[in-house]
């Protein structure tokens, strides 16, 4: 039994490894995804981190030279030309009078808040105005012999339990999403080729005519696909480790660090997913009537694990979803990176379910291969 299985497995691996196009497609995913994401992140971080001069239009500045100077010290200046943001700060005509009278002096911020590109600049301006407000108010109290700390009724101290590793939240979600999806996409073409493709090329009938069970065939195929998925996983982990290491996360006050321990952890909890993913794709490919159909179906079916993964990534998982396969494993990965306790119960259950699915799907595929309709694509 084992001998036949290993003969089958070796042939599948050999055959698949020579399928340059499918292997390359997997490699592109595993290598390309982290690199492309890191490039995007770098650009994004650059936008975040650079507190460039914010150029806006300040109307009536002569009414409030002190405010204008204050904003200047916060790098918010009146500008002309092209790079001026579409934000107008209009200082009222009676600003100086109101100020000296101790009445609120009006300034008007004129901007389109639905404009995503402006939103950050608007809130930066608003924040600076609020600070100016409290600075002037504090000095007014001080000048009257009142301790300005009176304005702070409650001294809010925050004890953030986060570590620099855990603050990467969303980025960690996306990083683990790409890692988990590798197990589904890296060997997708191979999976379709070895099942629907094998049938389309009329080589499956001969294989089935040999003294081997259909379950052996399915297991060998799934095993070979899972092997390539794991190869993709190893690759994306290594590439991610270096790619994420290059992104200057620390400028935002956190780090995304894929440790060797994390890579091993991913590898261990990834294996059941790889097997399940392989058996799922084989099953769906055999269900389809042709190669093309199989491609369509597999792509569609893969929305399910992707959805489960996304739910975890964007942290909208309900308590129930957190117990489901893929979601639970990815959640465990994120917690591992953050250095938190791993949700052992969820992880154990979902791993068992994953392996169970692998068993069920393999059995169903082997049943299908006994059906004439499936084998001959009738």
């Amino acid at each position, binding site marked *: 039994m084992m001998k036949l299985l290993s003969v089958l497995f070796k042939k599948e691996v050999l055959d698949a490894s020579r399928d340059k196009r499918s292997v390359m497609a997997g490699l592109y995913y595993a290598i390309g995804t982290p690199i492309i994401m890191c490039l995007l992140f770098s650009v994004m971080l650059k936008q975040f981190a650079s507190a460039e001069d914010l150029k806006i239009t300040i109307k009536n500045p002569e009414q409030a030279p002190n405010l204008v100077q204050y904003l200047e010290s916060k790098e918010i200046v009146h500008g002309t030309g092209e790079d001026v943001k579409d934000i107008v700060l209009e200082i009222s005509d009676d600003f100086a*009078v109101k*100020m000296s009278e*101790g009445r609120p002096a009006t300034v008007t911020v004129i901007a389109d808040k639905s404009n995503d590109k402006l939103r950050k600049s608007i809130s930066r301006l608003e924040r600076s105005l609020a600070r100016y407000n409290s600075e*002037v108010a504090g000095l007014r109290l*001080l*000048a009257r012999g009142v301790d300005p700390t009176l304005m702070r009724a409650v001294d809010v*101290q925050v004890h953030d339990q986060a570590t620099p590793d855990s603050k990467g939240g969303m980025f960690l979600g996306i990083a683990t999403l790409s890692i988990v999806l590798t197990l589904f996409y890296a060997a997708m073409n191979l999976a379709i080729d070895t099942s629907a493709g094998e049938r389309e090329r009329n080589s499956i009938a001969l294989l089935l005519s040999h003294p081997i069970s259909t379950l052996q065939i399915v297991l060998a195929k799934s095993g070979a696909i899972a092997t390539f998925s794991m190869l993709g996983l190893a690759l994306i982990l290594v590439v991610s480790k270096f790619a994420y290491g290059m992104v200057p996360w620390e400028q935002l006050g956190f780090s995304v660090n894929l440790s060797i321990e994390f890579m091993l952890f991913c590898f261990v909890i990834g294996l059941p997913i790889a097997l399940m993913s392989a058996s799922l794709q084989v099953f769906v490919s055999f269900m389809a009537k042709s190669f093309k159909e199989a491609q369509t179906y597999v792509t569609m079916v893969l929305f399910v694990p992707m959805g489960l993964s996304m739910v975890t990534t964007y942290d909208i998982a309900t308590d129930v979803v957190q117990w489901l396969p893929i979601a639970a494993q990815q959640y465990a990965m994120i917690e591992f990176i953050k250095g938190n306790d791993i949700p052992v119960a969820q992880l154990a259950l979902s791993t068992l379910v994953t392996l169970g699915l692998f068993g069920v799907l393999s059995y169903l595929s082997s049943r299908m291969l006994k059906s004439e309709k499936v084998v001959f694509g009738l």
Partner: protein
Amino acid sequence: MMSRSNMTKTGLFKLAALPLMMGLSSSAIAEQDNKVKPELTPCYAKGLDDRLLCGSIKQPVSDNPADGEIDIHFAIIPAIKPSKPEEAVLGFAGGPGQSATELAAIFDRNLRYARESRDILLVDQRGTGKSNKLQCEGVDLISQFELNDLTEDMDTFAKEETQKCKDELNTDLSHYSTVAAAKDFDAVREALGYKGLHLYGVSYGTRIAQEYTRQFPDSVITSTLDGVVPMQQSLTAIGKAIDDSMNALFDRCETDANCSENYPNLKANFYKLLEQLDDQAIETTVRHPRTHKKINLVLTKMKVFSTVRMALYSHTTRALVPLAISEALNGDYSPIVGLLSSTDMMDSMAMGMHSAIVCSEDWPSLTDVSRSDHGEAYLGRMMIEGFDIACPIWDAKPVDKSFYEPVKTDIPTLLLSGGLDPATPASWAEMAMVEMSNAKHLVSESATHGVVSQTCAANIVGKFIDSNGSEELDATCLEKDNRKQFFMNLNGVALHTDSGSESSEKE
């Protein structure tokens, strides 16, 4: 050791057993190392959300074992991305007497660029913070307001207070000098396993940073001194810096059209006010700055001068100085009271440790020449008088003469000074760097005390540390003028412009 006799008997096994023996012995050493490595527990500092790691090590109080041990506490602000795990930035607090760990939020902000890749290490210098804080009961705001420092028995009062504090602490302050404390810092460094440190000292912190550099040059990668106190200089020389900073303020008011119009003859008026108080303190009733209860205020020359002096440290409070002086002359002491209100916030300063430093380092070195020189300025004179009363009682052992020699080093050193600094003027930094062969001095003309907190210098310091002091530093952003406009009335910088506003005020 146990198996020695066995091994000589069975000489053949000796060689075979050797690697194992070495393995055992080296693991024994490793275990010992672990024991020495202090236990780190998560902790938090005021105003800083991030989780820190706190711990302590035991240090001998002195060379004499009979003096016992002292727990030196420290906090680590973990690096965002620990790409330089063998380095740390060691932050030294000022005062002397401030606790570095309590100021973690400020160190974190000032050293944010350096923290991206390495830990920030904050150690409570012996006598401050959690490291056996030498603190006597402070004077509350009400008594401080009431206190008349002009009375005849003031000297006696000061003597009594000092004696009381000394009895309370019951500690030989000689062990709390800068020289003794430097060793604690290196012991912490060694215990935590950092190979090299980037020093960052502010104010008095620059003195201990220089002393550390002198004693442990091999542990220092770079040194950043912000508001430099040269080893050669006694703190009593501060009076001249205060006067300079104050004069700069008066000059600015005079050249400013609004200010000179609103507060004519400001400088003269200030000295007129001081002169009035010189003869006779003003006794009045004011509102408590927080409780609003009526309390007594005895306004003396010392109090007014000190209030203005403290206001010089920050641009925000500098904006109030002309108003405070002119209102006080007109008999309204509210702005003075407001500026005074923070005086009972000085709890964090360990006055015992402060005295240990000044009485063993700044007071003994005073000569007749320096006494008359420093005494030319009002506050210098007051300081010397105060030390002359307190220091004989504290009886701290003067530091060795060699302490006052400038630090000779080729370690990359960045010195930062503020042109308006009322404590450590730029000339002090020049004095400190005479024997430093690899030093750069940057001056921000409009900054006061502590350049990094007020300017873009945090960025410069980050680059300096990142490049181990090798990079050319672009200091142009230090030229930016960040002074604020003076308050023209109780409500702000804007002047009353027309009478229309007066009428609307009446409604």
